[in-house]
């Protein structure tokens, strides 16, 4: 029973981790908590279902949907955040703006697709594997592997490529990076593009797992993913994964010991405790800038 709940919690945590990576990515580069991430996540699944509706086939529809969601990230930056940066507005304005954007996206999705819950096609034939007497589905394993791969690619991109170097430079000092010949606006837009793509990948996997999508799907899970990102040390990519897993497993254990009505508050209780005890999160180091 406990083992089964831990496995359930792990797969739940993987979903949080996938989304948390996007929060961490944008925060790591821009020092901005992008609260529109949950809505962008919902947009990703809807974009894919839209292309599937036009008979693009599953794989091309996913690719197009993911790219379109990346483009949405760039659009958000261009339309709403770039003007704020140009006017040198304080960071809090950008943060509030992203909250506003999340509502705009959510409501546009409702207007376009309706608010009802819609079925999402099954991505893989889901089989149950038994490990030590507990059930784990192939989809859960695929989610785990995908988020580790996504993490590896993103880490490589930031640590090992020229554009990653530029991203880190922008993170350290945007003005000086510009003086060194880095096109900072492009780099920031690119970061949002990556954020959008990671959100879309997460939403395709998670919608495919639960076979369900709706415009507000990113709200609750987005909040928990944010808690996961903060728990792991926001801005630290592998921290987001660990944070997601910790929250998922604690939800599983909370559901077992206290009943599932208490499961959802656990994520936020953990968030508060972490913020009190270790404000920088599990892997974040105080004072040292990190990517």
């Amino acid at each position, binding site marked *: 029973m406990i083992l089964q709940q831990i496995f359930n919690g792990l797969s739940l945590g993987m979903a949080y981790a996938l989304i948390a990576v996007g929060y961490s990515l944008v925060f790591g580069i821009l020092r901005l908590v992008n609260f529109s991430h949950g809505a962008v996540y919902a947009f990703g699944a809807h974009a894919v279902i839209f292309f599937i509706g036009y008979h693009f086939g599953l794989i091309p529809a996913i690719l197009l949907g993911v790219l379109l969601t990346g483009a949405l990230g760039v659009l958000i930056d261009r339309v709403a955040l770039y003007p704020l940066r140009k006017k040198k507005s304080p960071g809090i304005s950008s943060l509030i703006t992203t909250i506003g954007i999340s509502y705009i996206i959510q409501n546009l999705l409702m207007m376009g697709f309706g608010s009802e819950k819609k079925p999402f096609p099954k991505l893989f034939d889901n089989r149950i594997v038994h490990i030590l007497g507990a059930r784990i589905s192939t989809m859960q394993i695929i989610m785990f592997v995908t988020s580790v791969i996504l993490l590896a690619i993103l880490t490589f991109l930031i640590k090992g490529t020229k554009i990653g170097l530029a991203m880190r430079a922008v993170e350290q000092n945007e003005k000086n990076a510009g003086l060194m010949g880095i096109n900072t606006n492009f780099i920031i837009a690119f970061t949002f593009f990556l954020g959008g793509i990671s959100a879309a990948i997460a939403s395709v996997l998670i919608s495919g797992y639960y076979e369900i999508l709706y415009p507000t799907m990113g709200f609750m899970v987005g909040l928990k993913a944010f808690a996961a990102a903060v728990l792991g040390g926001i801005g630290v990519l592998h921290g987001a994964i660990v944070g997601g897993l910790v929250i998922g497993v604690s939800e599983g254990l909370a559901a*077992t010991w206290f009943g599932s009505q208490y499961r959802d508050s656990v994520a936020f209780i953990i968030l508060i405790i972490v913020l009190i005890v270790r404000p920088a999160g599990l892997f974040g180091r105080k004072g040292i800038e990190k990517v």
Partner: protein
Amino acid sequence: MRKILSVLLITVVIVSLLGGCSSSNKKDSGNGPIKIAVAFPMTGDNAEYGKSFLLAAQIKVDEWNANGGVLGRNIELVNYDDKNSGEEAASIAQKIVSNPEIIGVLGHFSSGVSMVAAPTYEENKVIEISNTASHPDYSSIGKYIFRNNSVISSEFKVIEDIITNDLSLTKVGIVAIKTDWGTTAGAIAADMIKNNPGLELVAQEEVLEGSDDYSLAIAKLQEAGAEVVISVGMYSLIAPLAKQYKAVDPDIQVIGLSNAYAQQLIELGGEAVEGIIFPVSFYADSDEEAVKQFVTAYVEEFGSEPSALAAQAYDSIGILLEAVKQNGSLDKETLRDTLNSITYQGITGETKFDEIGDATKEYTKLIVKDGKFVRYNGKAAQ
């Protein structure tokens, strides 16, 4: 300058307040259309319901208008969007009661929201009929507050019958959504099981809507040995729940409430919702002429079949207009008494409000079979 400005502002405020007085004292002119307010979520999470109820209400109004309206006047619906939020509903209720042309309200969607708005209607003697609220305390808020939906406890009696007599199962689990309504209904279900010596409540779990993973609750139910699970929630709970439960235990019997009856249940649940049983007060594939007529008009506009709740919205407008007709005037007090005394034959069966304003409903049992809703006559008949 500042002084002048503040005096000016105060004047503006006072004038606008006085203006407010005069408009609320406005009397019904007596020859314009009779207005009925429709207050549901038209945007936000539950917009699908609001839109479908508005359409159902409009179909009924169109029918009456085609036959010359009521008391020689046309009928008009006034649409409000309460976003399924208590705060919005409170201010909408104020707007509605300050418009003397409005004789009654169809709404609001969730029990919690309806109960926020109800005292305002009661105080101003405006009839409120909710086609969805099933919280036991809703209709006892006042004389003018009516419910054209099943009271949840009567629905559980049918479910009890299904479990004990039709299915002969004993170990029951409950999964309820964590809202005011879900918690209350879940507790009533638990009481029902505890009071029945033939049944055993093995586990009762609450889940938050919007977190689509129910595996944690399912693992507990399964561990406790549940043979049958009562899902206290809309189609959006029961479809994913059934899907996730059947992945771990294909033999589980899932039982829903009447509000699970929606086309989306089958679209969303696919094979996993096969065999789900629930009681309903309205069945869209019925042979009755009135039902067919409504379903055709509804499908034409909406594209999918009406739910039981939409049918109740249609009947609620019908019973209100019938009461106006029989009453012969729009006097608030006599209209209320007439509404409480008539028996109305609608598409959800015979509707009559009792003293506290609850409608008694007759139930049909439905089961999902081969991707369709069909009548359920017990295990032996299947």
